[in-house]
């Protein structure tokens, strides 16, 4: 291994959500410092939620993050429903799943085509790509547009959804708009996805092999996203309410986002962990894409997260078609569910684009939050990203400084970290 000195200091990594710095120090070939510093200002969401009535809680919780506001909203609603002992109806759950697909497809497309793809073309953003590969960029934009519109038809808008509430929906989607979505899916989006997948399949990614614990929901809905237990590649599954037995949060001086560790050290959540634990439950169209991307299962290479996201996006696009057809065939009926607040605790656990998301609320009998705790996927991944960086640096030391910086930024970016999201963590109890 090279005996060189290296100092990498990337202030505000680009093409990620939120503010993070990457600081690496190598002294005569020895790694002295390796930190992903989270410098996003804390927002203290747990405090913002305290004392708020349940009718407002999901509106506030959704504002933790613009890009996964639907995921936060659904996890928040789930936590409240579990605290109050409410069972959502089958129709409500089906519509929530369809809405969730919209956000997952939109977020994965944004990450793969607009944040990662430029790296693979050695471009500094998608803007030069739009000139060089206009067809690809147009198709990627159309996929994103479709996913946004799906959210807007169901929830009024994608960022900070309006209609999903505790107990169900404040309004049902317009059938004509659903029909239009189904048509676009058939006539355009499937083709667009095929072309986009082919483009990605031809582009080599850097590689890193570092086995780690994978954590994701298991034993829930089809490909578990909105229900199930917290599963692991090492330990038996646990129920969501017991998450604190598995996940330990640590406050760290270089990060306003808390780091998480499990019983076996750092662990990974997100598309690759879901693929590793649940890949066999995906639709055949998605499995075919995994094959064309040569994505193994299990896979220990974090650079391949982007490929796992694409596989998921294809699965969800095709499954959206199935759900849309079913809704259009069977029709939707207005439902009213009585919401009666009661004192108690509820834990929502949902798979959002970047991984497992937990909202944990304790309510008083007046229907107001007494205590709130949120565990965000990027927070869970931070320790794992640092472990990957530590593994990657020694192998890169023979490259130019610029190249090392580039590959390490790509590694961080592969996780699609949502830094703005991860800086509002919970009440910790210190021994």
């Amino acid at each position, binding site marked *: 291994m090279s005996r060189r000195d290296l100092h990498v200091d990337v202030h505000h990594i*680009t*093409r*990620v*959500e*939120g*503010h993070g710095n990457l600081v690496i120090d190598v002294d005569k070939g020895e790694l002295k410092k390796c930190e992903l510093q989270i410098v996003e*200002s*804390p*927002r*203290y969401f*747990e*405090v*913002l939620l*305290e004392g*708020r*009535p349940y009718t*407002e809680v999901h*509106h*506030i919780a959704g*504002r*933790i*993050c*613009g*890009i996964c*506001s639907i995921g936060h909203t659904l996890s928040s609603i789930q936590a409240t429903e579990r605290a109050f002992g409410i069972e959502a109806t089958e129709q409500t759950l089906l519509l929530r799943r369809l809405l969730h697909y919209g956000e997952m497809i939109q977020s994965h497309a944004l990450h793969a085509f*607009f*944040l990662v793809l430029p790296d693979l073309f050695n471009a*500094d*953003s*998608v*803007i030069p790509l*739009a000139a060089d590969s206009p067809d690809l*960029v147009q198709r990627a*934009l*159309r996929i*994103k*547009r479709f996913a*946004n519109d799906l959210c807007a038809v169901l*929830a*009024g*808008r*994608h*960022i*900070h959804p*309006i*209609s999903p*509430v505790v107990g169900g*929906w*404040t*309004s049902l989607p317009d059938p004509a708009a659903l029909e239009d979505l189904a048509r676009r899916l058939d006539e355009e989006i499937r083709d667009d996805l095929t072309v986009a997948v082919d483009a990605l399949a031809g582009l080599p990614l850097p590689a890193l092999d570092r086995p780690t614990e994978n954590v994701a929901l298991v034993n829930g809905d089809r490909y578990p996203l909105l229900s199930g237990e917290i599963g692991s590649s090492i330990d038996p599954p646990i129920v969501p309410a017991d998450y604190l037995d598995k996940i330990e949060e640590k*406050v760290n*001086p270089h990060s*306003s986002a808390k780091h998480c560790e499990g019983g076996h050290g750092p662990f990974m959540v997100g598309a690759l962990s879901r693929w590793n634990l649940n890949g066999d439950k995906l639709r055949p169209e998605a499995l075919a894409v995994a094959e064309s991307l040569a994505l193994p299962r299990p896979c220990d290479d974090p650079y391949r997260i982007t490929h796992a996201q694409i596989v998921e996006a294809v699965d969800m696009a095709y499954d959206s078609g199935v759900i849309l057809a079913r809704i259009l065939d069977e029709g939707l009926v207005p439902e009213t569910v009585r919401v009666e607040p009661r004192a108690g605790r509820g834990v929502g656990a949902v798979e959002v684009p970047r991984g497992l998301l937990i909202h944990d609320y304790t309510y008083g009998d007046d229907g107001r939050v007494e205590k709130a705790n949120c565990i965000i996927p990027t927070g869970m991944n931070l320790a794992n990203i640092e472990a990957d960086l530590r593994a990657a640096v020694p192998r890169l030391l023979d490259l130019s400084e610029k190249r090392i910086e580039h590959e390490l930024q790509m590694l961080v970016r592969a996780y699609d970290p949502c830094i*703005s*999201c991860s800086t509002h*963590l919970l*009440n*910790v*109890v*210190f021994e």
Partner: protein
Amino acid sequence: MPRPRVAFFSFTSCEGCQLTVLEQETKLLELLEVVEIVRFREAIDRREDRFDVAFVEGSISTPEEEDRVRWIRNQAGLVVAIGACATLGGVNAIREDRDHLDVQGRVYGEKGEWYPAHQVKTVAEVVSIDFELHGCPMAGAEFLDLVSCLITGRKFRQKGTSVCVECVLRGTVCQLWKGRPCLGPISRGGCQAVCPSQGGSCIGCRGLATEANLPALADQLESEGLGDGVTERMLELFNRKEFAAREGGQGDGKGDPA
């Protein structure tokens, strides 16, 4: 302004307003033809230090953020505050009635001093601004409209009328008639009353309408059995600062070291 050089900056926020720009998919490529984006950390690597227009998202909630936004003001021709976090303090300001030491301790435990809580400020509380785009998130159409005004020299007009007016124009059934509290009568429109049209209540994300009559709404809700401070409570979601200002002071953060 021919092909202005524009930059985007993000402070304490969910980054949803910047994302709103990326979500103008059908207009995005056209937008790139008429403006030159010289800084947008979420999406591009380029970082230039001079720009004609700076779009600033988020509340200003630490001394470092104050320094950074002052620098932006210096470098930019025009500064536009985008979204409720930047224009009102937004949801970040919900905690403004709480003691800062208490806030940081609740979230970070005894390590709270590593992450001291400060007063949440709007962009205009720290530097002078040229335009505001309201909403949580800001409305994409208004953003595009402002850009087109800047390029053509057309005057940018903000709505001063209430959300209620837009409900009437859309023919949306009134939330108050359905017996639900709603801030529509006192909230600034421009969103096409999107929340009531989806069967939800307006929670006031665009600030107060110019002619907002708070006591009248409070009385109306009271008379419909929806009283008990519900108006004030809903106003805390986005309008804690503006409400406090109109009520005459109070609600400022305590324990601010500055």
